[in-house]
């Protein structure tokens, strides 16, 4: 079976939706690959690469805005960020249904809306989780740096929180999985992809790590210890960059 590959950008995502809408013959079983998350997908035998054509993306977006109002842009962007959720088909179905029934977006009984809303909630949960679980490491004589690997592409919606919180700090946040980087240096914000980012950082050299680890150990009440509860809150997948779990 043919697979579809897009480049993992918002433009690519809009092109993908547009392509799927025009190809009525495709079924929801066709595999869709985001190249940024799955660079290995290029090795597939049969695949069609969706071009990231900015004109197509704009036109498609304009049509949708005319139909549903400008809020659709934000919705689509959000669903684009939920890049591991496999929601392209439910989204397309809702767009199709919304042409007939405008208030479909509020219809909590619709199966596809339920899926979209559940994904949305999960996205915001993931973002909220990293409000707390992101860790900055002090690079000697340099900025603070925070690597992380979120489930969804939350960085574009996460960084404003840290910009508000640390207006005077120089800091960098790196989504290691997607190779997406946010920098806040001398008050200037930038968000960009970096392909081929292979920097080795000595995160363990930060002098406050050991103090933090001491505090973390002492604050637990021995009579209440429950590693199960702890694991359910801090899943193993997020511990890689949490010095208290090293």
């Amino acid at each position, binding site marked *: 079976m043919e697979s579809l590959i897009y480049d993992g950008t918002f433009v690519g995502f809009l092109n993908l939706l547009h392509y799927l809408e025009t190809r009525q013959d495709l079924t929801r079983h066709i595999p869709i690959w985001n190249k940024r998350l799955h660079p290995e997908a290029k090795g597939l035998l049969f695949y069609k690469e969706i071009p990231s054509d900015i004109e197509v993306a704009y036109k498609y977006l304009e049509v949708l805005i005319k139909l549903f109002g400008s809020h659709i842009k934000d919705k689509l962007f959000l669903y684009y960020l939920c890049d591991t959720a496999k929601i392209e088909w439910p989204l397309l179905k809702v767009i199709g249904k919304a042409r007939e029934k405008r208030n479909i977006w509020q219809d909590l009984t619709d199966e596809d809306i339920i899926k979209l809303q559940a994904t949305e909630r999960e996205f915001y949960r993931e973002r909220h989780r990293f409000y*707390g679980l992101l860790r900055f490491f002090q690079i000697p004589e340099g900025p*603070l740096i925070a690597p992380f690997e979120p489930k969804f592409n939350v960085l574009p919606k996460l960084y404003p929180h840290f910009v508000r*919180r640390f207006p005077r700090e120089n800091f960098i946040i790196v989504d290691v999985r997607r190779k997406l980087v946010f920098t806040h240096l001398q008050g200037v914000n930038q968000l960009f992809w970096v392909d081929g980012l292979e920097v080795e950082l000595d995160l363990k050299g930060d002098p*406050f790590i050991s103090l*933090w680890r001491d505090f973390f150990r002492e*604050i*637990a009440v021995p009579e209440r210890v429950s590693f199960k509860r702890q694991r359910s*809150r801090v899943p193993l997948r997020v511990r890689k960059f949490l010095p208290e779990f090293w």
Partner: protein
Amino acid sequence: MQVIKKESSTELVLKILANSARYDNSCSSSGGRRESHPYGIGNSHLAGICHTWSADGRCVSLLKILQTNICKNNCKYCICRRDNDVPRALLQPEELAKITIEFYRRNYIEGLFLSSGIYRDPDYTMELMLRTVKILRERYLFNGYIHLKLIPGASRELVEEAFSLADRVSSNLELSTEESLRRLAPEKSLGLLMKPLEIVREIYKEKLRKAPASTQIIIGASPESDKTILSLASELYQKKIVRRVYYSAYIPVNKDKDLPAIAEPPFLREHRLYQADWLLRFYGFKLEELFGEEENLPLEMDPKLSWALRNLDFFPVELTRASFEELIRVPGIGPISAKKIIQARRFGELSEETLKKLRISLKRAKYFVTLRGKLLYRANRRTERAFLNKQLALFEDKGKESFALTGSLWKASSMMEPLWDF
């Protein structure tokens, strides 16, 4: 008494003071609303943020620490009591402020939770704590979250100043009667512990809202019943003196003839009290509704289910018509599910299928609701019957049989009420 001297490592001092602070449960960071200073650092987030979870599975949000664990008081349940021979330490305001900032910059914490033993006298201690907080607020222009413990006996001016600098303040009542305080914390009285909270209530401008203050009550160190404890809590809520009461299961750290000998800390009881407290604050329950003839909440089931089984004539609740207030009284349905049900009703007929799709679990609720007059469970199914029998058996042995025969809770209730004698 071994006092850790100034030249000791920050690591050691921090360990001692974090260790002494860990039994305080009142440590959340929600409810703060402070924007960051353009030249400073930090803000506070309304929803509260957990930064990690410690080995006990509890959220770590704040740098919870004592300024000092040196204390002139001798509360029998407390690790810091005067008579205990434990290492003592004091963190200088400068140093503590610096650690707070460095932890905050790395996003380890949401802010500071600062408490203290009573060193020299209440005013001296409160001033020491205020110095720490002032360095943070004024020198570092720190607008992150700060929770300050108000030292009982501190002067009104210092309490006012603490309140103006912190996002939340608290004074732990610890025990809910004068009698128990006299026995276990001889230097304290309810009046003394309430005073700082009352000052805060007086000066808090938004009179219709609860003051941004909290308190903690220890469960199981003294003989008070759940009803006594919750009536104190409910009075504090009604008078808008605190936003939150925390309950802390008594964990023995000292030996004393006045302390109860317990095999295990009453964690389940603590949990039930939190559930009941939640019902008081968010579900519109009145204190009297939470108790039958007993003075304590049943441990075997949550207080809402217990209320439901004592009030079967309230059920079944018809899902297609019930109001929000009625829905949230159904065991297993909380505010989120109730809202979903109400919203879904606007878009067509509510069906079991829809409820499933909305991920509304009817595991417990199904015994208490109908959908267009239809029951949502079959009483002859073994598992369901087992569930109900188990719950009912807790109340009255005869109820078990009558239930199994009629197959419906409310029917059983109206037919067999005298047998149940709730």
